Structures are given as C-alpha cells and as structure tokens.
C-alpha cells in the first residue's frame, strides 16, 4: 500500500439529495392534493354557513311580522272579543263534562240495570233537561260575542285592505307609475273611534254576565238524581267546577275594563307568542296564530315513543351482537339492521298507513291488550303509529353507534371481570355497559336527532292534528293524533305565499329544528369526548 500522502484524495461521494419535483401550474403534487382536500373542506363549511344564513334571513323578519299581526289583533279589538270567547269556551268544556256524565249514567243503566237503550234514555230525561238548561244559559253571551266579533272583524278587514293598498301604492311608485299610485285611495283608520263600538257595550256585557252567573248558579243548585254514588260524586264535582267558573266572571270584566287597544305589543311578545303559543292556526277568518308548542310537543311525543322502542332494541341488539352472538349470528344480524336505514322513509310511511296503523287499530281492540294505555282507539294514524315506525328508523343509528361504543371498551376490563369470577351477564351489566355508557348515551342522542328530523313518516302516519296532545290523559296520550315540526313544513310550505308571515313562520320552525339538531349533536359530542378521557 502506498502511503496515503502519495495518492490524490479521492473526491468525496456527492451527497445528492436534491431532486427537481414535477410541478403543475407551479404547484407540487403534495400541494395539489392538499389544496384539493382543503378546498373540499372549505366548500362544506361555506355551504353550511350559507344554509344557516339563508334560514336566518328568511326567518328573522317573521318576528317583526308577527308583532304586526299581534298589534292588529289588539287594535281591531279581536283581543277584546276573545275575553268573551274564552268564557264561552270554558262553558263548552263544562257541557262536555256533562255529556261524559250522561254517557256513564247511560252505561250504568244498560249494564247494571239491564235496560234497553230507549228505556235507559228515558230514565235520563230529567238529566237531559238539566243539561239542556245548562247548555242554553250561555246563549245571550254567545249572541253578544257574535255581534262584537263582526264589528272587530270589520275593523280588521278594513285595516288589512288599507295595508294592502299601501303596499300596492309603494309597488307602483317603485315601478315608476306615480299617477296610478296616486289613484290608489288610502284611508286613515280611526281605531279609537271605531273601537268605541266595542267598548261601549261593556255595561251590556256586565249585565249579561251577571244574568249568566245567576242562571248557572240556579241551574246547578238543583241537580238531577243519578243512580250511583260515584256518579253523584261526579255531579258534586261538576257543581264545584261550575262555582269556580262563575267565580272567574268578575276578573274577566275587570280585564275587559282595563283593556286598552293602544297598548303597544312588545317585540318580545311576538317571540314568546311563537315559542309558547299554544295554537298554530293559519288562514283563519278570525286571527292567525303561530305558536310552535303544539308542533314541538307533537314532535317530542312521537320522538319519545320512538326512543322508548328504539333504545332497548338498538342497545340490546348492540350488546347481543358484540358480546353474545356467535360470529355467524354477527354476520347475519349486523347487515340486516343496517339495511333498515336503506329503506326509503316514504315506503315506511306507506307501510305505516296500510299495515301498521290498521294492525294497531285492530290490536287495540283485543280484549287481552285492554290494559295498554289508550287502547282501544279509533284513529288509525296517531302518535303511536308514527312513533313505532320512527323507532324502526332510529334502531340502525343507535345500534351502530352503541355497538361501536361497546366495541371500544378495552378487552382487558372484560378479562379482569371474568378473572374475578363474574358471569357473562354480570360482566356485561356491571362492567361493559357502564364503561360504554357515554358512548351509548350519545348513540341515543344521535338517534333522537335522526328521529326529530324525520319528515315523511310523521307526515304520513302521525295523524296531523294540530293540537297540544292532552297529557292529562296519562299514558294514553300516545294514541292521539299529532302534528310535528317537520310535518308542518312539508305540508304547508308548498301552499304559502313566499314572503308572507306564514311562509316566514315555517322558516322559523325550520330554524328551530336546525338548532335542536345542533344542540343534540353538540351534547352528544361533548359526552363522547368525556368518555374518551375517562377510559383513555
């Protein structure tokens, strides 16, 4: 080997790590991919933002319009007349109590005394006379209300027509036709002057009300005899109710006296009238109400029925499939349940109308199911029918997510439990389900979100009666027909005039749904996050 100094140093091998990258439009491939996916994400976020914005834009002016709607209601005196109407309706409720009483008595005569219908009816002649007098006592009040109502509606109609003309004129001006605009005649409505026609009748009403009170007291003082103690007790109850009713008369008069057609309607009243309003009444000749409560409670009731069915089914199936099933069963059950979510909901709705609703109605008549609340019922389409189908729709969501949550429980927990001598059932109940609980709860919440947002099934099967379900009926409330927030939008959106208050009200219902969905998802995510930390 020659000494190192004699050979020229070998050139160091170059440290070649640079490489020219292919570029498209000046971007590397990496940057293109990043841009593509980033772009998609941005589009998704923007679309979501636009939807929110759109809902807000269309819905927000509802509250202003509703404020006007409520103002007219007051200015034109409809509110005033409704004091009397309320009184009249309470009386109607009392007569319904009497009809119910009569039905019970009739049944007693037929069942216990073995009378034929005609004879049983004959026995009730004195009762009928009593009920007839009670029912007729309201006539003077009703007549007064009817007259005053006509006056109020006339004021309102003139006002509305005038508003329409103002709008027409504004449109003509905008269209550059000032002459035609000037031709549109406007009138100034002297509400104060007109309303006197109503308020001036107060002494008349006071008199009628006093006479009404006296008449009622007189009538109920001598109740007809009824066959059983139980029925007699009901009559006593009726007397009490009537006394309570009569006791409210002075307050009504007081309220009418204090009523002022010029009192402004606050913006917040428009808001509360929507959120807590107990009536959703549109295209009415009297007064339109946009109260979301009947729809909200309807949605809630149907959803609760759905969850009552879907939670045990979905969570139970998830536990079974994950913990107990053989691999063959797993392969069979999982896709089957997941298939349910592939059924178009309109098909389920058809099934609900044609098969399930009819079946439930028939089943409700079976003797051995009579213990079930609300059975038997006559309406084929009701909250129960819709709730059953919605439950079916929620099962796959709950099942899939709950199964996921259970599957995420570390196997080590299960082994530790078995190693301490626990049985399979104990391990499931005491270890696995608690460890997966937050995951299961969020699965249920997302199932709820799925159910609340479902439209087709409720529209077809829920019965679409707009009224707050009568929760005083106890559990049998589930067999009442209801309407829902989603259903009302689908049903009415096609018919409304764009821009009208009704149109905007539907948007606000949509907005409310949107917020409910948002809230449910938010809570579900919060719960899942907490779960990750605790088991982590």
């Amino acid at each position: 080997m020659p000494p190192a100094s004699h050979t020229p140093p070998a050139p160091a091998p170059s440290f070649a790590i640079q490489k020219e990258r292919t570029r498209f439009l000046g971007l590397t491939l990496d940057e293109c991919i990043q841009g593509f996916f980033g772009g998609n994400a941005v589009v998704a976020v923007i679309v979501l933002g636009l939807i929110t914005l759109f809902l807000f834009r269309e819905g927000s002016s509802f509250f202003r319009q509703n404020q006007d709607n409520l103002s007219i209601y007051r200015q034109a005196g409809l509110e005033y007349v409704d004091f009397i109407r309320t009184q009249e309706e309470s009386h109607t409720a009392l007569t319904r109590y009497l009809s119910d009483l009569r039905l019970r008595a009739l049944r007693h005569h037929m069942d216990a005394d073995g009378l034929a219908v005609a004879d049983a009816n004959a026995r009730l002649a004195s009762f009928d006379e009593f009920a007839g007098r009670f029912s007729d006592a309201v006539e003077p009040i009703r007549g007064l209300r009817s007259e005053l109502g006509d006056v109020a509606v006339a004021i309102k109609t003139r006002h509305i027509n005038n508003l329409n003309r103002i709008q027409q004129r504004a449109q003509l001006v905008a269209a550059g036709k000032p002459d035609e605009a000037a031709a549109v005649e406007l009138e100034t409505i002297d509400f104060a002057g007109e309303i006197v026609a109503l308020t001036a009748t107060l002494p008349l009403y006071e008199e009628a009300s006093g006479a009404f009170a006296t008449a009622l007291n007189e009538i109920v003082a001598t109740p007809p005899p009824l066959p059983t103690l139980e029925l007699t007790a009901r009559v006593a109850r009726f007397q009490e109710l009537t006394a309570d009713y009569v006791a409210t008369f002075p307050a009504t008069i007081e309220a009418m006296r204090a009523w002022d057609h010029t009192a402004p309607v606050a913006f917040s009243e428009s808001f509360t009238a929507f959120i807590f309003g107990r009536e959703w009444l549109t295209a009415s000749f009297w007064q339109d109400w946009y109260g979301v409560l009947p729809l909200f409670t309807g949605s809630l009731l149907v959803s609760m029925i759905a969850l009552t069915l879907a939670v045990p089914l979905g969570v139970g199936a998830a536990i079974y499939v994950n913990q107990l099933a053989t691999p063959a069963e797993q392969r069979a059950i999982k896709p089957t349940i997941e298939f349910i979510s592939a059924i178009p909901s309109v098909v389920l709705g058809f099934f609900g109308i044609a098969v399930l609703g009819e079946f439930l109605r028939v089943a409700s008549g079976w003797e051995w199911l009579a213990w079930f609340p609300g059975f038997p019922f006559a309406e084929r389409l009701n909250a129960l029918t819709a709730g059953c189908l919605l439950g079916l729709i929620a099962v796959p969501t709950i099942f899939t997510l709950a199964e996921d949550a259970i599957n995420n429980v570390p196997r080590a927990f299960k082994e530790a439990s078995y190693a301490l001598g626990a049985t399979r059932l104990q391990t499931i109940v005491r270890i696995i389900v608690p460890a997966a609980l937050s995951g299961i709860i969020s699965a249920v919440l997302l199932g709820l979100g799925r159910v609340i947002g479902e439209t087709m099934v409720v529209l077809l099967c829920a019965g679409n009666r707009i009224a707050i379900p009568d929760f005083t009926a106890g559990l049998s409330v589930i067999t009442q027909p209801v309407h829902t927030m989603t259903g009302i939008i689908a049903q009415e959106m096609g018919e409304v005039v764009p821009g009208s208050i009704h149109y905007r009200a539907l948007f606000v219902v949509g907005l409310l749904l949107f917020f409910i969905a948002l809230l449910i998802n938010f809570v579900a995510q919060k719960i899942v996050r907490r779960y990750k930390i605790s088991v982590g």
Partner: protein
Amino acid sequence: METASSAAPLKRSLAQPPSSSDASGDSTLIDIQNLDFYYGAKQALFDINLRIPDKRVTAFIGPSGCGKSTLLRCLNRMNDLIDGTAVKRGTIKVRGVDIYGRTVDPIELRKRVGMVFQKSNPFPKSIYENITYGLRIQGVNNKTRLDEVVEKSLRGAALWDEVKDRLHESGLGLSGGQQQRLCIARTIAVEPEIILMDEPCSALDPIATAKVEELIHELKKQFTIIIVTHSMQQAARCSDRTAFFYMGKLIEFDETRNIFMNPKNPQTEAYVSGRFG
C-alpha cells in the same frame, strides 16, 4: 349426579389436605399431566407434566411465544373465552379435582384462582369499587364487611397508606405501579387460593417493580403464586421453583437455584446464561 351444583365438589376438594408431595417435601397443589392445548388447529402446548407446590412461588420462564401465558390461562380456564381453544389431552388437577371436568363451573374456579394481568387493568370505577367488585358480584353488599375487605386487601397489597384518603376516586388516576398493586388487591379481595401473574411488572419502572416483588414475598405466606416473567433476575429473586418452556414444551422444572446455577438441560443453560431468548 352432581350437575345440580357443579361448584360444590370443587370447593370442598380444594379445602381438603393435599394428597401428594414432591421430592423436596412440598405438597403438590396443582398437578398437570400430559397436557396438549390447541388454538384451533394450532397446537400451543405439548405434553406438559408439571406439579406446582402449595404456598410457593413458581416462575414460568422462556422465550416469547413458548406458551407460558397459554399454560397460565389454562389454570383458571381463561382460555375458554377464546373461540376454538381446547385441551385435547391430559388433565389439570387442583387438589385432585380435574378443573376441566364436566361438572366444574369455570366461574367458581376463577373465584379460587385469581389472575393479575400484564397490563394493569383497573375498572373505570373508584378504588373502592374496584376492590369490592369481586365480592359484590357474589352478592356481598354489607357495608362494614366491604369496608373491612377493602382495607385488608389494600394493606395486603401494600397500597393502603398511599390511597386511604382517596378510596372513592377513580382507580385510573393512580400511577402504573399503584394500578398494578390495585389489581393485586382486587384479586386478593376475593380470597383465592392461587394467584396467577402474567408478567405483572413488564410495564413498570424498576422502583415499582421492586415494590411488587416485595409484595410477592409477602403474599406467598397465604397464596400459591405462579408468575410468568421475562426477566430472569425477577425469577431468580422471587421464585422458589422455576419452569423453563421452549416451543410449547416444558424443558426443565426444578428449584429456582438449580435452574440458574446448575441446569441439567443444555437448552435451559443456554437460555439462562443469555445466549438466546
């Protein structure tokens, strides 16, 4: 005949005095004979014959995959939880009772043969609930009794002083070493006769390991302990007997001293002197 209560004969027999004893005078508690074990079609244990003495610490050593855990999990039938596993030949007797016998209830067996796992696995519950779990599932709900057992078990696992003020906090909030001792406490709370430990220290730092090893010394007064370990030092430090496994076979079983100082089998010698494994 005995199907009505399959557990009773096992319990009764476990309480009987030992029937046999080995050369060094220790009585045999577990007697494994000609055991072949399969995961599906794959044989994991080949003709194992082993007599594990009572109230001693027995270590299972050997390279990974040689079947130590598999054999350990045969002893409380944890392998039953894996589909397709089977003891195809041979018997395992505890105090003369075949634990794979037709009338044996594995649930009862596991109450008598506790297990501590490689990775500590307290339940996501409070320390108190972790320890009382084994009793609660047996239907014990008496508060005073549970309190007693909690204190006794935690003292037994040398954890009492560290956690006595936070019994109702989550067991997952403890350090790794404390969690492992909590798992030991949870196991001794049901008063098993045998405790199986599958590499209980492999995830612990040296200080926590030393504590667990100390604990093992204490526990062997009351329990028969079988410990799987990767660390030969640990086997040498804690065990009385050592069994060396290789490729699913038991190669050598002897006093720990003999295995490390004077192995008879060249494979054992190669392993303990660190030439493979």
